[in-house]
Structures are given as C-alpha cells and as structure tokens.
C-alpha cells in the first residue's frame, strides 16, 4: 500500500467516525445533553475563540506541557542511563525506584499543591513526573541493550574512555529505544495535562471541568478534540524528526 492510499484511508476513517457519531446524536437514541453532536462543536469553537478563552487555554496548557515534558524527559533519560551504566548506582537506587514507580502522577496532586500551590509549577511537576518514569525505563533498557560487541569495538579503537564511550557508542546505540520512550512520554504527557489542570490550574483541563459543571457538553467535546489535535500534531512532528535522526536505519 502506498502512502497516498494509506493517507486517504486514514482520512476516510475519520470522516466515517464523525458521520457515525453525528447519526447517533441526531437519531435521538441518546438525549442531546448526554451526547453532543460533532456539528455542535464548530459553534462552540467560534464562541470560545471570540471570547479569547480557547487561545488562552491552549497557550497555558502548552506551556505546562512543554516545561513538564522537557524536564521529565531530560531527567528520565539521564537517570535511566546512569542506572544502566553504573551497577553500584543501580543497586543503590533500585528499591527506591520500585517503591516510587507504581504511584500514579495524580496521586501526587496533594503534594503538588502543597509544594507549588495551585500554580503552573504544580501542573508542570505532575507532567514531568509522568514523563520521567516512561523515559527512565525506556532509557534504562535501551542502554542495557546496546550491543556489547560495539563497546568492545570502541575499546579496540581508542574510544573506551567514559566520554567517547558514552557519546560515540552507547547513546547512539541506545537512541532508537530512547526515542520510543520520548514518543510514549509525548502522549502520556498530554493525558496528564488534563488531569493536572482539573483541580483549577488554568488550561484545557480546567475549562473542561468548568464546562461540564454547566453541562455544556459541546464545549467539553471541543476541548477533547483540541487535545486530540494537539497530541496528533506533536506526535506527527516527532515522527518527522525521528525519521531524520534515525535515517541510518534500514
């Protein structure tokens, strides 16, 4: 299947989904208040944009997202790589990691509020936390999985010192795995954006909360679609970058 057919099939799938949804909403099987029709979304969109709310919320969420994602990714990759490289450090931190890992980011919300207040910082912290674990584990196993023969090759050709070994052999070798962690974090980060903003930090999640309080389901759907699009765009851009960075792969 060539790219063109697969693109048109994807488009067809989206259109079919919207049509089905619209049909169910119009048929009256489900009360209008419970399931807004997709055709109600553009109206809601125009109203929100005219009042400047949509733009403000998108910018606010994007900034939480960007800060949290950058911080979580950087720290996750760093700590994951370090744990994979140094056995002593790995052993030292392994049980701390085991204890902290299963706690979901939303469980940290009380502490986020105590430490940062109901603020941008709290939202970014929660996003960073989610993204951290994904990148920690992805990097850990990617670095562990680097071909030992390539490391031996480095030693044989004078690249056995920590810095050349890390930057010429290990990190490039682990890059495909690290990047798939990054990509997973990209998606998981958006999910946490909403959760983090539900408790009143300005952004998409907060606006959804307000709208659902007023039973304005079309506005809720508008912001759901907004998040889906933002995720879609960030994932698409990431894939473009990844394809370039990994062009050495078959």
């Amino acid at each position, binding site marked *: 299947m060539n790219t063109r057919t697969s693109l048109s099939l994807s488009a067809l799938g989206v259109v079919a989904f919207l049509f089905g949804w619209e049909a169910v909403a119009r048929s009256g099987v489900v009360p209008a208040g419970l399931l807004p029709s997709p055709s109600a979304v553009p109206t809601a969109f125009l109203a929100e944009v005219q009042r400047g709310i949509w733009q403000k919320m998108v910018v606010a969420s994007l900034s939480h997202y960007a800060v949290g994602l950058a911080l979580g990714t950087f720290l996750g990759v760093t700590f994951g790589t370090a744990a994979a490289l140094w056995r002593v450090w790995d052993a030292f931190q392994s049980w701390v990691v085991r204890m902290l890992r299963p706690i979901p980011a939303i469980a940290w919300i009380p502490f986020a509020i105590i430490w940062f207040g109901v603020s941008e910082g709290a939202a970014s912290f929660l996003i960073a936390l989610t993204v951290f674990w994904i990148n920690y584990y992805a990097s850990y196993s990617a670095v562990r999985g680097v071909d030992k023969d390539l490391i031996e090759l*480095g030693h044989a050709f004078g690249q056995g010192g920590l810095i050349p070994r890390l930057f010429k052999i290990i990190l490039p070798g682990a890059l495909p795995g690290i990047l798939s962690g990054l990509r997973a974090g990209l998606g998981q980060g958006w999910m946490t954006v909403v959760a983090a903003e539900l408790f009143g930090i300005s952004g998409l999640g907060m606006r959804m909360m307000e709208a659902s309080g007023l039973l304005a389901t079309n506005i809720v759907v508008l912001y759901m679609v907004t998040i889906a699009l933002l995720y879609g765009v960030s994932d698409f851009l990431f894939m473009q970058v990844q394809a370039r960075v990994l062009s050495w792969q078959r």
Partner: protein
Amino acid sequence: MAAVIDLNGVAIGYGDSAPPVLVDVTLSVERGSFVAIVGPSGVGKSTLLRVVAGLHKARTGGVTIHQDQRPAHRPVGLVFQDARLLPWRRVVKNVQLGLEGLPISAADRLRRAEEALKLVRLDGYARRWPYELSGGQRQRVGIARAMAVDPDILLMDEPFGALDAITRNNLQDELRRIHRETGKTILFVTHDLEEAVHLADRIIVLGGTPARVVRDVKNDAGRDGSVFRDQVEKLRLEIADNYSI
C-alpha cells in the same frame, strides 16, 4: 629482523578459578611478516588476539608491542569476524573511528580515511550507510578502519569466516595485495588450514588441553598448486595428531 610483538609465557583463562585454556605461549612476530594462528574452536586463539589488542587480560605472562615512534598512530588495528561497523555512521565516519582522539586535524582524519578506503577499493562508498553494503564490502570497511590508524600490527580475527566462498577468495587475494603494498605486520587467526597456508608466511598451530603452541612452521607453499596441497596435508596430519589426545 626486528620483532613487532613479543609474547612471553602467556596463559589465558576465563573467569577467576577455571583452569586455563591456553598456556605457555612464547613467540615473537617479526616486522612485515604475515603470521597465521590456527587451531580448533575453543582453543583460545581469538582471545589470544584480544590479549595482544589489550582487550583481555592474560592470566600470566606479558605482551610487549614494540611501537614505532611515528606520531598519530595506534599500536594495533583490529579486524573482527563480524565487520562490526557502527550502523549510525556513514562508511567514511566508521573508518575515522580510531583516528578520533589522535592529535591530528579533522582534514587529516578525512584524508587518511579516504586513503584507507582507496586501499580496500571502496573509494566512492564513503557516503554510504553500512546497511547499504554487502557482507564483503562491510568487511573491507572493517579492514580500512584498522588500516587507517596506521597500526604497528594488524590483528585479524577470522575476518573472512562469515563470507561466502567467492567473496572469501576475493578478499584473501586483496589481503595479500594489501600486505605486499603496505608491508604491514599481520597476525591472522583462523580455523581454516587452507586459508592459513594460502595467506601466511608463518603458521602457528595451537592444540592440546590446555592448548599450547604445537607447531610453528615457515610456510612458503604460497599458491603453488601441488606444493600448496602437500603443505595443507602435512599440517592437517600434524594437527590431527595433536588433537586426538
């Protein structure tokens, strides 16, 4: 002739307590010679090469490499059985790996890499990715990478073992030519007697348990038909004697 490397009572083992697999290796390799080490698998010949390359510690004994004083070179260039290229580097960058960290300019690095690629007849492939090359071409890049560091000794660990017969023959001829043209000292590990007789001017046979040097012969059979067969046959019988413990 001056020796490039001296091995003195080298013993090799794995782990800390297991008995050694190879003992009492004392030999010196003369500058410009082409020496083959043969022996069955598990005898420790690849490990011996790694000891010379400084990648594995000998149990006992010492390895001395008599380094030349010329600047910007490395004492050994190692060629692996699996070409072992870095898949994320283009061919020319792979060849430069060993030059990085040496006190030469980027322009000199590039020039030396290009010369090495020319030596293995891969000029024109500099910008390719490793995955675009055939097995034989990859092995040529591996040889170029080792030659680029201008080593005192070229160490080759069954470099043609994974190639098909035709490619292997081509590369054997190429290696003879490279040896003739550059005069490099070569230490070549193989389990293939014919390959050893075909390539080397001295053959060291390892055998026994634990293994030791059982034969060290001058080989001038070269490629001369009947002489070649005789030499292979003679060595085969000797080795057979030493393997049936």
